[in-house]
C-alpha cells in the first residue's frame, strides 16, 4: 500500500540544494487544503529521483489559509513531478496508522493517484518549460 515515509528526509535534503543559475522557473500552487495549520512538505523530482531517496528540490510551506505556493528558480527545463504531504501536526513526519497507511493528507502533481502504491511517474510528470511554468495541485 501507499507509503511516503521517506518524503520528509527527501524534502529536508532537497531544501539545501542550491538552484542552478539562468534556467527555468516553476511555481507550484497547492489548493483546497482542508486544515489551516501545519506545513505542506513538498518534494520536486525528476525521473531519475522519483522512485528513489533524493529530490532535486523541495519546499516547506506554512499553511495559513486554504492554499500555499512554492517558487523554484533556476531549474533545468524538462520533466518533473511533485510529491507532497500536509504535516498537519508539524511533527516533521508523515504520520501513518499502525499498519503503515498515511493519516495525513498527501498529493501528487497532476493530482495523480496511486493504485496500491504512490502515483506512477508517468501519471505525475509535467513539463517545466524554459520560459517558466505554473502547476496547480488540488488536495482532496
Amino acid at each position: 500500500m501507499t507509503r511516503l515515509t521517506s518524503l520528509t528526509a527527501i524534502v529536508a535534503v532537497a531544501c539545501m540544494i542550491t538552484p542552478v543559475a539562468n534556467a527555468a522557473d516553476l511555481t507550484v500552487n497547492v489548493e483546497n487544503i482542508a486544515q489551516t495549520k501545519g506545513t505542506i512538505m513538498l518534494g520536486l523530482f525528476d525521473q531519475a529521483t522519483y522512485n528513489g531517496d533524493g529530490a532535486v528540490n523541495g519546499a516547506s510551506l506554512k499553511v495559513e489559509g486554504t492554499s500555499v505556493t512554492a517558487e523554484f528558480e533556476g531549474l533545468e527545463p524538462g520533466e518533473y513531478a511533485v510529491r507532497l504531504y500536509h504535516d498537519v501536526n508539524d511533527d516533521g513526519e508523515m504520520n501513518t496508522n499502525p499498519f503503515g497507511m498515511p493519516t495525513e493528507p498527501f498529493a501528487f502533481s497532476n493530482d495523480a493517484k496511486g493504485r496500491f502504491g504512490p502515483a506512477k511517474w508517468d501519471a505525475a510528470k509535467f513539463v517545466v518549460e524554459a520560459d517558466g511554468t505554473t502547476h496547480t495541485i488540488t488536495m482532496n
Partner: protein
Amino acid sequence: MDLSRRHFIEAGMGASLAGAVGVSFGLSASAKANSMPAWHLGYANAPAGGFDPAPMKLVFGTPPSDLKGSLYRNGPAHFSYGDEYASHWFDGDGLIHRIAIEDGQAVHQARFVETRKRREEQAAQTFLAPGFGTLGDESYYVESADDTNAANTSVLMVDGELLALWEAGSAFSMNPETLETKGPKTWRDDLKGMPFLAHPKVEPDGRVWNLAVGGSRVGIYRIGTNGALEDFGLVNIGRAAYIHDWTMSERHLIILVQPWINESLRPPVVAGFEWQPQHGLQMLIVDKDDFSNQRWTQAPARMFFHTGSAWEESDGTIKFDVSFYKEPILGVGGGAAEIRGEWDQSYFSEEGVLTLVEIPPQGDAKLIETGIIGEFPQVDPRFRGKSRNLVALASGASNTRPGSTTLAVHNWTSGETKAFDFGDNRIVEEFLFVPKSGGQSDLESWLVGPVLNIKAGVREICVFDAAHVDDGPVCIWQAEYSWPLGFHGTWA
C-alpha cells in the same frame, strides 16, 4: 421440525400471500422478466435509492407486546450493471435496513452506504473497485483501504451512533433514523483508516471490543459505553490468516488463526488465500486487562466464518461455539455464481457444523461436533462472554436453491436441539436474540429475523419464542416487496 405447523402458516397466510404477489413490484418483477430462478431475488439489485419507510403487514400470529426496538441489518445489495455482473457476492454495495417494531407494527426502510466505491460505480454505471472477489478496473485509484470499502457486512450501535461495518476498512457512521451516510469513522487521529472488523464483541454492559486485521498483525480496540476509544493495542498472530470473526469471554479475547493464509494482498483478495492445514487451527488467547499476557492453544485444522460466544468455567476452561468447516468453502462457485442465477449443490459440498471448542487451562483444545448444520450462530446479548444455554443458527439446506431452510436453537445445558423448518419456499437468515421484558435467562427471549419468501417474492420478518422455536413463529410481518439476502444485524 414441524411440517404441519409450517403448512398451517402457509394456509393461514394464503389470502394475504396472493395479495402480496399481486402487488409485488421492483425486484420480483425484474427478476421474473429476466427468467431468473425465484431464489435469485436474494441476489437481485435493490433500488438505487433504497426503500423509504413502509409499514409491513401482519400476516400471521400476534406480535409480542414487549417487543419494541429496531432490527438493523446490512448486506450486499447491488450486483449488476446492465448485463455485467459483480464478481463476488461479498463485493456488493452495503444496504442498511431498519425494521422498526413498536406496538405490534413493523416499518421497513433501507439506504445504501454512500462509499466512494458506491458513488463512482453508480455514476459510471459499471464496476470499478477491486474487492474480495473482484480484480477491479485499473483506472480506479486505491490510496487507502476505504477506497475499496463496500461497507456491506454488519452494523453496530454504540452510544446512539449507527455504524455500517466491513472488515478491511473503516466503519461508516450512519444516521440511525434516516440511514443517511455521515462518513468513515476515525476512532483516534492516529488510527485513521485502520480496519474495523465486522464482528465487534459487545459486553452485556455495552463496552465494545473489536479487531483490526493487517496480515499477521492484529489491532485490538476497546470502546467504552460512551462510544469513546478507551484503548488500542497490537498483537502478532504469526500468519496472515483469514479473520472474519473471533470470540471473547469475560476475561479473554480468543483470536482463531485458521490455516487459510493470505500469500498475496493483490486483488482479488480471495485468490491470495491458500489452505495450509498442516498448521492446524491455532488460537491466541489474550488477557483483556493486559494484551501482552498471551497464550497459544491449538486444534485440528478447521475453517470458519462465525463464532457464537465464549465463556469460562471455574477451573479456567474456555468454551465457545462456532460453525466449523473442514476446509474453505469459497472460491470456485460459491459467492460468484448465485449472482448470475446459477446454483449447484456442489458449491456447498462442505457445510458448517455447530461445534463446541473446549480450551483447557493448559494443552490442546478439544472439538465437540454436534452434527447440527448451520451458520450465523447467535446468542443472547445479556450473556455474551458468560455461561448460557442457547445458540441459534440458520440451519438446513435445500436441494433446489442456495440458503438455509430452518431456524435451529441448540441448548448446551440440556443437549436438546429445537428447530423450525420453513421449507424450500423461504430462505432463512440470521436471527437475533431480543430479551423478553423482565426475563432473567436466555430461555426468556425472542428471536427476531428475516426470511425471503421466494414463492411470494416478498420479505418477511418473523418472531419466535427462543425456548420453543419448534412451535413455529409467534408472528410474521410481510413487506410488499423483496430485498436481497443480507449478512448480519443488531437489535437496538
